[in-house]
């Protein structure tokens, strides 16, 4: 297809190609492969027994449980929001659409630490609702509700950001045809829209989940680091690391690294099935 002559004018000489590829591969190896390998090698440095024992420890198990509970609440909430927001924004035209889009992106521009801080200001002991909450014996900060709400804030845009460009590119013709044929709202979504967006939706949910389980800064502010009680898995990693239990810290970190590898693998699967590239930012 490509004749020799066009090949030589639109690509670089073999030497330059080889040089650029080497530098790029060296950079990626140093910056991506080495850290990933380091997690697992450091985790196994003192052998399988220490590795398994660190995961079976009670504090580790309770951290895993807390992380799973948090994701189990935050991910469905933000999935429902993501679908609703994408439906409103892509299937309808209204004033203030660009503003709404920027506001949905807002959590990306807010430091995780600030995300945690705002909830301390609202619900903390010296916060606005603090005295009222103390009177009614409700604990939000340094307890599960605070961890969940901070995670919801951080993972807020993920599903919406994946669905909006996808649904925008698909237009509204199919839904309009369905209306003409007498379909009702929920029917249209389930039978017409959902089959078109299922892979994008799946990837958005997986990204949201990866961030929900891995969130550190925001959760760190609201959790209070109570061992066995309010430590999520990333916080447990921090505590172990600061106690110089490096092998145990990396053993728990390797669980989170597995989650990251799984998420990246699923992205390739989704791209394969959906036929075009998933958005995948953040």
């Amino acid at each position, binding site marked *: 297809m490509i004749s020799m002559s*066009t090949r030589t*004018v*639109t*690509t*670089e000489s073999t030497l330059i190609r080889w040089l*650029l590829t080497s*530098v*790029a*591969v060296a*950079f*990626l190896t140093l910056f991506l*492969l*080495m*850290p*990933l390998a380091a997690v697992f090698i*450091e985790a196994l440095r003192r052998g399988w027994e220490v590795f398994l024992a660190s995961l079976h420890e009670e504090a580790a198990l309770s951290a895993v449980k807390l992380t799973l509970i948090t994701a189990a609440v935050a991910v469905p909430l933000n999935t429902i929001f993501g679908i*609703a*927001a994408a*439906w*409103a924004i892509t299937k*309808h035209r209204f004033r203030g659409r660009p503003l709404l889009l920027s*506001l949905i992106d*807002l959590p*990306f*521009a*807010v*430091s*995780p*630490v*600030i995300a945690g*801080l*705002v909830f*301390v*200001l609202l619900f*903390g002991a*010296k*916060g606005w609702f603090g005295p009222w909450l103390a009177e009614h014996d409700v604990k939000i900060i340094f307890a599960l509700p605070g961890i969940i709400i901070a995670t*919801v804030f951080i993972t807020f845009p993920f599903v919406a950001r994946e669905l909006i460009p996808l649904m925008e590119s698909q237009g509204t013709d199919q839904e309009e045809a369905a*209306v003409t044929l007498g379909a009702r*709202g929920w029917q*249209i979504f389930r039978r017409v829209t959902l089959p078109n967006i299922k892979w994008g939706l799946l990837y958005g949910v997986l*990204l949201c989940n*990866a961030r929900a389980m*891995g*969130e*550190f*800064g925001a959760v*760190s*502010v609201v959790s209070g680091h109570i061992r066995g009680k309010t430590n999520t898995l*990333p*916080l447990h*990693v921090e505590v172990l690391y600061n106690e110089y239990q490096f092998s145990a*810290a*990396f053993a728990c*970190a390797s669980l*989170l690294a597995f*989650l*990251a590898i799984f998420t*990246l693998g699923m992205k390739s699967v989704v791209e394969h099935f959906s036929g075009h590239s998933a958005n995948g*930012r953040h």
Partner: protein
Amino acid sequence: MSRKRVIPGFGLSLGFTITYLSLIILIPLAALFIKASAAGWDEWISLLGSPRVLAAAKLTFGASAAAAAVSVVFGLLVTWVLVRYEFPGRRLLDAMVDLPFALPTAVAGITLCAIYAPNGWIGEWLAKWGIQAAYNWTGVFIALTFIGFPFVVRTLQPVMEDLGKEIEEAAATLGAGRWTIFRRVVFPLLVPALITGFTLAFARAIGEYGSVIFISGNLPMKTEILPHLIIMQLEQFKYDAAAVIATGMLLVSFALLLLINLLQRRLDWQHR
């Protein structure tokens, strides 16, 4: 635009979206601004002008800008190689670029420490040459580059893939060499995407916490980033100070992002 709405569910989906957005994001952020504005001008000036805050701000914004700039250089190189060349392992490396997005920041933090600390994988080797790459500015910079460069690759990649070879062929027909073609034809088309990539990497780096605090060492006045300073205020129950620093940080980063956005629009305009 007097067309009647055909597709149902507008009121419900928009109503839910706005309510949820207000409850989770807007009202809490408004609470932060109200708290910060309750502090008077004097308090603002004395707090934000204090040496510790200024040192942290200089480190946070400086290292973030440097990391985003280096991310642009390596992001451009990596994207070029991934899009244009075929080599074994290309698809794997392409998929791996997203790792910093998917890897929890605390994991990234302790791992970078294991690599760059003076007794670490690379750190030990660097120490022999008298280079220290952790617990100082360099450490912060390394962590922020790790977090930032995927943003550049992922914004640049679709633009580079859509670039037709026709213009390059035309330029070659007119006698331009490969380097001239890149510099005068290809590169200008990539500039808007590079600026977007820079902005995203920069914005993320300013707020970054988990991947930085382990490798930075958190020495006040020296290697302490703004988010860590906010946490220190909270631990001493200085809510006002935390709110003022956080608001100042948000305002500066919003202003910078707006500025870069305007610059980009101007560039887009010139290209049209």
